[in-house]
């Protein structure tokens, strides 16, 4: 180190740090560029009618209301599947599990589940829910598939926030004679709730934006009216974008509708993520323990 003068050492530091800064700017520019581009091209398509009416003229005009509702059904279904299972698994990991082979197996299972490609979840949903359980291509099959896909996200966020509850909380409750379950239900879970909520919102955002898992389990290009039962097929925003942009004879003609749909989907997904991030930041600042 002493071979170089202090000045040259500081010069190389400035050089490196400037490079890191430029890299960060590039990454931000990619995000900002995409958002701004989509906003500029999509905003003209957005109107009250676009959001609340059905597609007309073989998809070349009209709105995307059924797709918005479909995405809503699918994500609500997914969270109904994933939230109870995910929180229960997190409670096991944080409150009951002890170090050992069983815990290692469970952790490996969750890690690998998180790494399974979304299209493989689609295949799995097709084989198990659509085929084996005879749910057909339906909201139910799609919700179950999406629910399993976001399960690791929910488990991760819930476990983290359960672990952040100080052990003194538990000891105080147990010391007063409460059982383990009473302690979890009345002390630990309420304290961990904001974190669990954040995780769920992130999970919902992820479920709303996924396309591959619902392609063969739930989504369809066009439905007449809204679905009437969980066993009906459904339109969904991400799938709507994919089909409008790649298939059909009016690809160029429907370009404004495509940008509009992309803008709606981005607003929904990023809006949810933003809410989750804000809740989390607030929580970290106000939490006293």
């Amino acid at each position, binding site marked *: 180190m002493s071979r170089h003068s202090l000045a040259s050492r500081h010069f190389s*530091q400035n050089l490196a*740090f400037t490079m*890191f*800064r430029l890299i*960060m700017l590039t*990454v931000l520019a*990619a*995000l900002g560029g*995409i958002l701004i*581009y*989509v906003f500029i091209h999509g905003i003209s398509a957005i109107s009250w009618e676009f959001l609340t009416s059905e597609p007309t003229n073989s998809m070349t005009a009209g709105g995307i209301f059924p797709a918005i509702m479909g995405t809503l059904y699918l994500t609500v279904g997914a969270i109904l599947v994933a939230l109870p299972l995910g929180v*229960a*698994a997190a*409670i*096991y990991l944080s409150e*009951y*599990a002890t170090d050992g082979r069983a815990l290692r*197996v*469970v952790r*490996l*299972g*969750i890690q*690998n*589940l998180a*790494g*399974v*490609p*979304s*299209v*493989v979840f689609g*295949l*799995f949903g097709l*084989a*198990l829910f659509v*085929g*084996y359980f005879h749910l057909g291509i339906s909201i139910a099959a799609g919700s179950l598939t999406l629910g399993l896909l976001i*399960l690791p996200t929910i*488990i991760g966020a819930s476990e983290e926030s359960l672990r952040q509850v100080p052990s003194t909380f538990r000891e105080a409750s147990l010391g007063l004679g409460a*059982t*383990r*379950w009473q302690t979890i239900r009345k002390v630990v879970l309420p304290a961990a709730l904001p974190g669990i909520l954040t995780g769920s919102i992130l999970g919902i955002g*992820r479920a*709303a*934006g996924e*396309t*591959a898992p619902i*392609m*063969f389990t739930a989504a369809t290009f066009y439905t007449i009216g809204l679905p009437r039962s969980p066993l009906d097929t459904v339109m969904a925003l*991400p*799938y709507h*974008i*994919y089909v409008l*942009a*790649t298939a059909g004879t009016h690809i160029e003609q429907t*370009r404004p509708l495509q940008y509009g749909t992309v803008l709606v*989907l981005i607003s929904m*997904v*990023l809006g949810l993520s*933003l809410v989750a991030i804000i809740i989390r*930041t607030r929580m970290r600042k106000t939490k006293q323990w």
Partner: protein
Amino acid sequence: MLQIPEAQVIVGDNAPPVAVAPLTKRKVTSTVQEARIRRVFVVSGFFSVIIMALIVLFLFKEGLGLFSTVSVKDFLFGEFWYPTYDPSDFGILPLIAGSMAVTVISSAIAVPLGVGAALYLGEVAGNRTREILKPAVELLASLPSVVLGFVGMVVIAPLMQQWWDIPTGLNVLNASMMLAIMAIPTIASISEDALHSVPRDLVEASLALGATRLETLTRVIIPGAISGMGTGVILGMSRAMGETMVVLMVAGGAAQIPTSIFESVRPLPATIAAEMGETPFGSEHYHALFAIGIVLFLLTMGFNLVAAYISQRFHQKGAATL
């Protein structure tokens, strides 16, 4: 409340009889109930393992059917993917090559950018800047893949075609750029966590000895965080390899072994997504797509296991191992 005999209270295997206040019936039911509740949670804990097992089971159940007519060798190393021709060809070598091409090129873009962003967030940015920029990187992660596919297809592809005068903008390079955008947040946030977990006293010791911040970074912090950064890079690559919508919309879809980054490819996930919709349930083609699912599943699981191994094997155990 009924009184119950003391003998039912079991304290331990060889516990001497101690004076225990007689339990009420209510307390006994609550111990039984506690045990039951515990069991429910243990089962929920194992649910992910069960799902993994079911995924393997159903992929193999539907996929192995192919190998009664096509040999494993012809499937993995066959150079022609003509599933709907008569006679059909189920060789996925071009598809594997396509997946490899986009994974490698996207990593070449995403690793420097992701690691650089992590170094900036972890070591250069002030606290307030970091508090704003970290969420921005997270937002990038939550961008739906179909949106990136759309942007690559509608915006980037025509530009590429114009600039370089190439036959199609839907090619390896375009798909890799879009995949890189998906992989960067994964790499950046895991790497940043790793940088953050290097013990502060080591950093301070290095600075106190007169090293500059860059010297501390390259000789103390990065060596200490290298396993975490490696994990992040591999998970980022795994994400790029398994990602579907981007390669479905942007990679061009030609089942060929690419010889340049301006050629179209048809990666594994894109093949499944593009063809499953038009395949009769239970046909040879249907089984072939599940067999591709098995290959994709094993490849990404390989990546994930390597990542898990690295993070365990080279895990920073206190200051002593530095």
